């Protein structure tokens, strides 16, 4: 059975800290891994990773995929209170349905 596991499940840091969120996956015929940020409502898309070792970056956020280790990390540098959210990782296999398998999410709280 396909599964995605995130760690830690929750994290509390102070503004300015750097955090690393982990995601490991077991997805049949793996094709891509996606990261989403969820604040009060809808998950919003951050990154989609398909190739191993290529870093995707957007401002203070970056992510990389390691296909050998079946894992991905999401880094946030110089954290701000606005980074407080649930971060969701999802894996996608090669079927043409586009279905995503989500991890449990990591709840990040950034204190001032």
């Amino acid at each position, binding site marked *: 059975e396909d599964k995605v596991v995130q760690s830690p*499940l929750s994290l509390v840091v102070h503004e300015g800290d750097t955090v690393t969120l982990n995601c490991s996956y077991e997805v049949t015929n793996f094709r891509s891994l996606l990261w989403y940020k969820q604040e009060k*409502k*809808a*998950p919003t*898309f951050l990154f*989609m990773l398909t190739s191993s070792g290529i870093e995707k970056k957007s401002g203070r956020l970056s992510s990389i995929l390691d296909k050998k280790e079946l894992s991905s990390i999401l880094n946030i540098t110089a954290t701000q209170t606005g980074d407080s959210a649930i971060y969701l990782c999802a894996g996608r296999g090669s079927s043409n*349905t*586009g279905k995503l398998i*989500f991890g*449990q999410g990591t709840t990040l709280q950034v204190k001032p």
Partner: protein
Amino acid sequence: NAGVTQTPKFRILKIGQSMTLQCTQDMNHNYMYWYRQDPGMGLKLIYYSVGAGITDKGEVPNGYNVSRSTTEDFPLRLELAAPSQTSVYFCASSYSTIPDQPQHFGDGTRLSIL
């Protein structure tokens, strides 16, 4: 752009009642999905559709039904509501799977069954 719109935002149902959660998208996306999110459990796929007239079960379909008569709309029906269906429901859509595209989510419907 409206994107993915879900109604209602909140609803309280009594055990045994039925209701339909509405989802519509204006992005001409072929692929649509229904998820439920329980605390600490991530999102679980209930049903999905790869185009008008085509639907299929996800991980947790029991107690739910869907239909897809148009590209824009993908309603989720709960028959005989049970307390275990208390959850936040998200609808999502994407344009294609080749090449891979991210799914875009609605704001969710918070449903309580009492």
